[in-house]
């Protein structure tokens, strides 16, 4: 009898789906989730639509172990990954077009070009001052990254996925992965520096 009651209680506590309240309850959350990862409101709204359509089709797969929000977010995350996968196979960016901040020849090959070397930020450390402004610049600079670089950066740094998982999804090799992430961070820090220190 006790077991029966416990089983019933567990069943009651399981999460259920309520599609008619999805927009009111999670619309803005999911939009912001997508926006922070895609750097574009339009793309985020498109993927939000796709997420709802996929979720409605997959309702039977919802077992109620996780909350409705977690479940919907995991579907949207999948859409974000698929978006970057398509982008990284579609237009293979010309790697040589990347304008490296390092000297390309001579005795000091591989060392910083003086004019593009990282400066000291300690006078304007955003951890202690004007954080909002810094974050606005950070978001803008992320949006300027070519999609192939942005995909790797977002999945690794924001989604905190394992490197080999990112490569499996986006189709890169292990060594290629670090080169791409390295370039993304070089571009990002330079873009931020130009906007943050010169403000």
């Amino acid at each position: 009898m006790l077991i029966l009651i416990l089983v019933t209680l567990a069943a009651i506590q399981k999460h259920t789906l309520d599609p008619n309240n999805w927009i009111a309850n999670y619309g803005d959350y999911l939009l912001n989730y997508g926006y922070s990862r895609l750097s574009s409101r339009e793309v985020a709204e498109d993927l939000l639509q796709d997420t709802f359509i996929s979720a409605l089709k997959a309702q039977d797969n919802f077992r109620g172990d996780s909350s409705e929000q977690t479940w919907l977010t995991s579907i949207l995350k999948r859409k974000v990954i698929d978006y970057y996968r398509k982008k990284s196979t579609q237009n293979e960016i010309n790697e040589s077009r990347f304008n490296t901040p390092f000297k390309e020849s001579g005795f000091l090959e591989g060392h910083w070009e003086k004019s593009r070397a990282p400066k000291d930020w300690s006078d304007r450390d955003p951890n202690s001052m004007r954080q909002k402004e810094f974050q606005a610049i950070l978001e803008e600079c992320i949006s300027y990254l070519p999609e192939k670089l942005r995909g790797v950066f977002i999945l690794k740094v924001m989604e905190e996925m394992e490197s080999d998982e990112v490569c499996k999804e986006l189709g890169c090799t292990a060594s290629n992965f670090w080169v791409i992430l390295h370039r993304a961070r070089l571009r990002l820090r330079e873009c931020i520096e130009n906007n943050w220190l010169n403000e």
Partner: protein
Amino acid sequence: MSNIFNGIGKMMNKLMLSCDEATMLITRSDFEQLSSIKQFKLKMHLASCSMCRNFKQQSSIITSQVNLLKKELDANKMRVALSDDSKKNLQELINKNLQK
């Protein structure tokens, strides 16, 4: 004479990291354990290169600020909101797919 310089340069390159290599290792070390040889080479480089030290400092600032952006979302601080039109369109989409 320039041959000698090049020779010395090549030898130095084997022992010393360039800034390109050093910053790549900084990126890797943020996410995985480096071998002790690489760690040592990186330490040597950083000891003498303030620009790469700046890079390291900036990288950790960027990573921590990206994490803050994430946390804001979890705390329900929204940066963008659905317009009424978008909400209406989405609701119609849901209704259409629910009826099926």
